[in-house]
């Protein structure tokens, strides 16, 4: 009609941020004009905003303020609700909410019964309404900080978020006036946060993202291939996480308190809540320093309590939990049909990852070549708590200009589901020590096709004709047992049983070697100059057809050849 004819509609400006919405804490981040992701501090100056809402006489408190209400007003304080979103009551685990408003069944979803208005009546507030309020507060904090109304976001969610949960999340954020551009998985967000750094180079690598949060731990093994990420395996643990570490400290200090005062502060909800808050603070302090103190006024029966703990003691207490986290990573790597040696990078994410011991354990687990990206092992590491938010912010800045339809089309399975190579493709080279050929991978396995990789190879010193032999290769782990010197073996065995047990384990040296598989093609480059170089490009098409190009760097011509796509009958037989 006429109304549409007139003038250009002012395009709705989209200001998108990244939100990491966790069970315990949330973070918000935006991408600055230089393309750097930065975490936004809320009004209270917090960059990690507890995902907690509390109500006193109709007044809403959020974040840290709400968290402190867990002591005095726990019944009207809603915490740890993220994992309840989009689930029915029967399938949730209400344990984390023990010390706050309890979840209850409400129609098909979960709700909390709280006094959120000035009247004395209890209202049933559904978890999606709580989420809406939480997101609204986050968005308003971001709007205040940026000076622009935030109306869109990318939210990071765990890899095992179901469609129903995603739908509920979309609705909840829509209701908060925030258009949910995309939901990205937390491990990918963490990888993206590292890859988006200006000094990052895009390499083919296997990355383990270990996300240790407050109430759950998630591990994801990701193949990063030319900046594209494919998740190879994941695992989730709701039993070993930050809360369990807090519990250790709570138990430790409670025992100390009982020794002195004969009362158990864990018996009284208020005392327990106080102890819990302080234990968490102590845990954080122990991640930074060797010693931490804890002091609570009127912990129980009006008795003040102050104590200290050092890191060694804490690590001894928590050794079991740390061990299980390490095992969890090992299991997940195995689940992806990979070996520890295949992992090129470990990204530690989530608040619990600040703990130095965890990264030390991982350093021991992985080979020295593996980079452990955590604050205690790498000074340039990004703060683990904010990784997901940063990744989401980067993604938000990338897609905020897109139409909704564009985003939908791009995230459609038609686009995202692609064949991944089962074996690596490489070129045979001559190594110094053996006369046998040595496989050098150009395209790693688990690379999504179509893909294109190039390598520049040295030619023999004297030049001449060279052979380019393109093969498939499989990674193999070679285990060599180191022979022990037998001289002191007898003497040691007499000393003690414990020692000999340790030493009887022969030290194994494990290394990664390539096993040459099917030969794909051979090509010849003739008359390479002395000291010349040969560039080999392998281009794998979407149908698994391969184009190999080889040419001498700086020379004309070169060789180019095609390999047909595998016929369907032959699938798997090769």
């Amino acid at each position: 009609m006429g109304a549409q004819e007139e003038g250009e509609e002012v395009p709705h400006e989209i200001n998108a941020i990244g939100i990491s919405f966790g069970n315990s804490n949330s973070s918000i981040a935006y991408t600055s004009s230089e393309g750097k992701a930065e975490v936004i501090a809320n009004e209270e100056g917090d960059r990690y905003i507890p995902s907690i809402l509390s109500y006193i006489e109709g007044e809403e408190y959020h974040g840290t303020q709400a968290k402190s209400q867990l002591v005095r007003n726990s019944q009207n304080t809603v915490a740890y609700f993220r994992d309840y979103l989009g689930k029915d009551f029967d399938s949730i685990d209400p344990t984390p909410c023990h010390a706050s408003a309890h979840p209850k069944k409400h129609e098909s979803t979960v709700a909390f019964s709280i006094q959120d208005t000035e009247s004395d009546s209890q209202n049933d507030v559904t978890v999606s309404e709580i989420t809406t309020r939480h997101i609204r507060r986050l968005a308003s904090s971001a709007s205040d900080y940026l000076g622009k109304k935030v109306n869109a976001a990318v939210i990071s969610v765990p890899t095992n978020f179901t469609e129903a949960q995603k739908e509920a999340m979309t609705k909840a954020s829509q209701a908060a006036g925030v258009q949910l551009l995309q939901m990205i998985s937390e491990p990918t967000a963490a990888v993206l946060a590292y890859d988006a750094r200006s000094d990052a180079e895009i390499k083919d690598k296997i990355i383990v993202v270990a996300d240790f949060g407050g109430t759950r731990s998630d591990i994801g093994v990701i193949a990063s291939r030319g900046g594209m990420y494919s998740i190879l395996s994941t695992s989730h643990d709701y039993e070993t996480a930050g809360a369990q570490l807090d519990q250790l400290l709570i138990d430790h200090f409670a025992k100390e308190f009982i020794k002195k005062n004969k009362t158990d502060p864990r018996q009284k909800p208020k005392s327990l809540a106080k102890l819990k808050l302080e234990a968490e603070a102590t845990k954080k302090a122990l991640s930074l320093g060797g010693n931490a103190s804890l002091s609570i006024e009127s912990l129980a029966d009006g008795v003040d309590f102050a104590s200290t703990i050092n890191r060694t003691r804490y690590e001894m207490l928590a050794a079991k939990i740390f061990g299980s986290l390490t095992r969890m990573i090992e299991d997940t790597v195995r689940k992806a049909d990979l070996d520890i040696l295949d992992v090129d990078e470990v990204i530690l994410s989530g608040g619990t990852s600040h703990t130095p011991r965890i990264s030390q354990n991982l350093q021991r687990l992985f080979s020295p070549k593996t980079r452990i990206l955590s604050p205690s092992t790498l000074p340039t590491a990004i703060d683990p708590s904010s990784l997901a938010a940063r990744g989401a912010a980067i993604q938000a800045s990338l897609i905020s200009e897109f139409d909704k339809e564009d985003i939908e089309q791009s995230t459609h399975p038609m686009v995202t589901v692609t064949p991944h190579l089962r074996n690596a493709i490489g070129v045979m080279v001559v190594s110094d020590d053996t006369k046998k050929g040595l496989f050098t991978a150009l395209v790693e396995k688990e690379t999504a096709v179509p893909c294109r990789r190039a390598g520049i190879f040295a030619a023999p010193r004297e030049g001449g004709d060279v052979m380019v032999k393109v093969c498939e290769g499989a990674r193999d782990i070679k285990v060599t047992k180191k022979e022990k010197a037998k001289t002191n073996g007898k003497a040691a065995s007499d000393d003690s049983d414990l020692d000999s047990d340790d030493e009887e384990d022969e030290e194994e040296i494990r290394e990664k070697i390539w096993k040459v598989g099917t030969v794909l093609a051979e090509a010849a480059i003739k008359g390479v100059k002395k000291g010349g170089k040969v560039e080999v490009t392998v281009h794998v098409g979407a149908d698994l057809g391969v184009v190999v190009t080889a040419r001498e760097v700086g020379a004309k011509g070169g060789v180019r050849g095609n390999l047909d796509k595998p016929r369907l009958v032959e699938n798997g037989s090769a």
Partner: protein
Amino acid sequence: MAAVQISLPLPVLPQGWTEEKDFKPIGQLSSATQRNIEPVGPHFLAHARRKRHKRTFSEDERIQAQENVKKIDDDDAGEISEPEDPLMLQRDAKDWKGQDHYAVLGLSKYRYKATESQIKRAHRKKDLRHHPDKKAAAGSSEDDSFFKCIQKATEVLLDPVKRRQFDSVDEAADVEPPSKKQAQKGGFFKLWNPVFVAEGRFSKIQPVPRLGDDNSTKEEVEDFYNFWYNFDSWRSFEYQDEDVPDDNENRDQKRHVERKNNNARKKKKTEDTARLRALVDECLQGDERIKKFKKQERAGKDKRRLDREAAEKKEKEDKIKAAEEQERLRKEAEEASKVERAEGRKAKEAAKNAVKKNKRVLKGSVKDGNYLLPAGQEAGAKRIDEVLNDVEAVMAKIEPEEMALLASKLNGLKVAEEISTVWSEEVKRLVDAGKFKEVDMKVLGK
């Protein structure tokens, strides 16, 4: 991705290796695993673009590059796309008040909507084209009058006060209200909306409410007309002022001109307000929605009245119904009591009959039992008298129900002993109940 540098050398070509084009395909790739790529990151977006548009790597790179280049072109093309009117190029800069500044800069399709940066860019563009030095270099006359026009236009349009004055009298931006003939053809909203949008540029209050369409609510339509009847315009007419002579010439003359200008401005402003009012009147007259709302209102009122009447009628009917109901209930009750009474009488008679019958049974029983004498013994008159007296005494004492019970017990008995036992039991019961004393009995119960 950049090529990887590999320091280990390639093997030497074995002796005798020959192949056409120096390439020998041997094997094929093993099958692949289908996996989900995470839809995240710049490289994924590139992948999605390639896959959706079915481009190869190199095609995609080329098209992306082209797109980037085009964007810059587009930005420039916006303002110069207008052809220049040769008549306009002949304009004299002295007559700047008469010139259309937007047309001079090639912005006539934007007019009051042109942004400052658009104006600046348009100026730059025209500057480069019409610079006198360039013309001189091209060998044509050193006529720089149009260049001056451009400068003047930019000067006016980049000064917010002057631009507003010019916009006030920029009739080229006006949209004529539809003629009667056009209006009759229909398309009310299509015809009127641009008129109000154009007029709306003078409003101090922004945004200006829109005319809307057939589906607009009553509030929206009312808002719209209220707004336009109370229109607060910034339009002024200084631009059309007569030039005020320099004050050192003649003060009186100057004041005279100033006064004249002021009056002219006021007059024009009043005229403008009147014009706008007439315009809104005309539009209102043709607005079908107003009629529709009135009709709805009337329908609403009628409906209310009808509702009320219906309600009243219903109430009356209800009352009558209730009265009828009461009357009916009363009658029913009366009838019921009548029947009851008649039944009571019948029952009494029946009871009396029963008592009579029972009495007969009782008397009969003693007679059957040979007046309680052993069989064969003849009962004397005295004996009969005594027994019957006893029976009478008992019958006088006991209740009709008890009598019925006794009669049922006695009924059918023929043997004197059995009858005697029943009687003695009954007498005993009555004595125990204190109805009479044993001595009263002459025969029974002994």
